């Protein structure tokens, strides 16, 4: 094999082996369903938080969509930090400040369901060395705005979804005082798409390789 072709082969292998440059910055979506039957007919609040960890969390955002409920959401909410939007039309919370929160009045029905899609560099940290992740928390509060409902968690949350420093995601649900868990968190199938920059890189690499292969392996015609 010609030395130029060998070098290009090695470069291609190195690029492919170093990995993350090729992987897509895939968004990840969870379906979160809350069973609020024990609270049906009562008033309270729904609280959604998405906060960074202690020191060096990478950027991420949580996009809340497809909100459905047979309860009644109020027409105003209280936003803190980097949060915008309103339920049920949708909201976006970014892990910018210490406390990024959507707090909205709610006359409970038997359910509250929505999707949350996570995106950002926190999901594909690559070679970044980070030590803290970010956590999305779902809580319900009573009319006094401070009493957690349907959860015995120390955070007051019914469900937590944490993006770990390595980009992996774990979810946790917590039971109420009777041991009944009222939240379910289900990962939806991924629909990852390669980033445009990576597609261009791959096409260019392929063209260079094919061209070089032809230059150094096809018989020369005189």
């Amino acid at each position, binding site marked *: 094999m010609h030395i130029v072709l060998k070098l290009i082969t090695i470069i291609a292998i190195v690029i492919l082996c170093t990995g993350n440059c090729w992987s897509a910055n895939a968004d990840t979506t969870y379906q979160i369903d809350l069973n609020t039957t024990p609270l049906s007919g009562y008033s309270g609040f729904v609280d959604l938080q998405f906060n960074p960890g202690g020191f060096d969390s990478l950027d991420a955002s949580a996009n809340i969509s497809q909100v459905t409920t047979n309860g009644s959401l109020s027409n105003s909410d209280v936003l803190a930090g980097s949060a915008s939007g309103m339920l049920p039309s949708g909201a976006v919370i970014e892990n910018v400040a210490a406390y990024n929160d959507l707090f909205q009045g709610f006359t409970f029905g038997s359910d509250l369901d929505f999707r949350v899609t996570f995106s950002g560099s926190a999901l594909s940290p690559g070679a970044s060395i980070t*030590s803290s992740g970010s956590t999305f928390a779902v809580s319900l509060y009573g009319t006094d705005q401070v009493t957690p409902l349907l959860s015995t968690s120390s955070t007051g949350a019914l469900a937590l979804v*944490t993006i770990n420093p390595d980009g992996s995601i774990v979810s946790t649900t917590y039971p109420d005082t009777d041991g009944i868990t009222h939240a379910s968190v289900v990962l939806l199938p991924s629909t990852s798409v390669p980033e445009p920059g990576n597609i261009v890189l791959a096409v260019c690499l392929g063209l260079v390789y094919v061209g070089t292969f032809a230059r150094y392996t096809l018989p020369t015609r005189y």
Partner: protein
Amino acid sequence: MTTFRRLLFSTIALAFMTRCAVCATQAQTYTVVDLNSFGIPDSTQPGGFRHSSTYVYGLNNKGQAVGDSYLQIGTYLYYGQQLPEYSVHGFRTAPNSAINSQTDDLGSFYSNIYYNESHARAINDSGEVVGWSSTSDYKLNFGYSERAFRTQPNSPINLLTDDLGGYSQFPTIVFSQAYAINGRGEVAGTTGGGTDPGDTPDYDKYGFRTTPTGAPQFSMTRMGRVTTSINATGQVTGNFSSFPYAFLSSPSSVQPVNLTFIADYTTAYGVNDGGQVVGSRGNLAIRTAPNTFLNQTTDMLGTLGGVASDAYAINSFGDVVGSSDVTGNNATHAFVYRSGNLFDLNDLLPQGSNFILEEARAINDVGQIAVNGHDSTNNPHAYLLTPTTTSRNYLRVTASGLVYNRQTQTFNATLTVTNTAIAPIYGPLQVELTKITSGATLLHATGSHNGNPFITLNNITRLDPGTTTSLPVTFSYSGYARLAYTATAYSQGF
């Protein structure tokens, strides 16, 4: 070789060497306490005494070691000269300390010049020590005998309370020796006797297990020839008299006793709380799976390059210690077997150590190892090895995001500590938080170190390679900026 191949091989070799370097730097190392000895008066030596021979056999989870050390017990008249009389006494050290001749001498049942000998073999976490001491057979009022003892916690041998008695088919002279004790005070050992003082003693004819505590009345359970070790449930392991099999008994809660045959041509020396047995089959050290027969493919621990090895003890985590011939079979070295690897303990000592570790006899659940060896003058010494605390480089701490609780008005997160080394890291672990954002306060801190709050995880006694443990942290904070901090984990103190 072509340029391409050279490049390829160089890359592979570099990667391999880098990997090996990482392995070497991550091997568990130890600090060493020389247990020294009771000492013997010697006017020719600086200080007027010299260290006597010492051998260690047992170790509890507090770092107290037991064994034997030689001492002078008096003088005797020989052709008009008073000559020193020597003997051996059992010792029990203070935690993580060398022998103190003023406080650690267990004494013996009698203190006259004829019956003044004792041997200590095991210690439990309460400080009860078992072994045996010389005695005069009380039935005939003459004749030398040895009788098993179990001391009171952190007390010397007491003839009135500690004699475990013994059993013989012809009980004119009764011998007994105790080799092991568990946390409940149940003792395992061996006993036998003879018909008159001139008989060859068959003191290892019957293995026994005593009842747990209370008055030292002897409760005999005959179960083979020698019982060598006992675990928390009362399972004992030992060896038969009539054929070369090792056995493992049922727990003391099961009556009558059932025996599981471990393997033929096997000697069993130790058993852990999970029912794993260690010893040797033929010439090679073994460690079985819990409560089952020896698997001659997977349970053989190998050697340090020589032809023979013995495994003497095992802790609750399955770590094994013993001795092995080294390459060339011209020396025996102490080893620890952990995570599938056999390590020569002499390779894990501080630089400049001028002694040789030959035989590791005990390992506790915090990773400390009791070892026999010899010093630079070839004098037998015993040593206590403690894992070094330089493990923070291998404890990685990560944090979840913070969650605000409106009721408690606190921010809450979970810290995860991961052991990234290839060796276990021993607890307790301490997690120190530094560079906390101004205005934020860590709640429920255990204490303060260099002005920084820390939390102690007392429930973590050991973190195996690749495993994690988690702890919640709670802050009070009312600022808008990111609540930032840095977390560092330490093992066994800062």
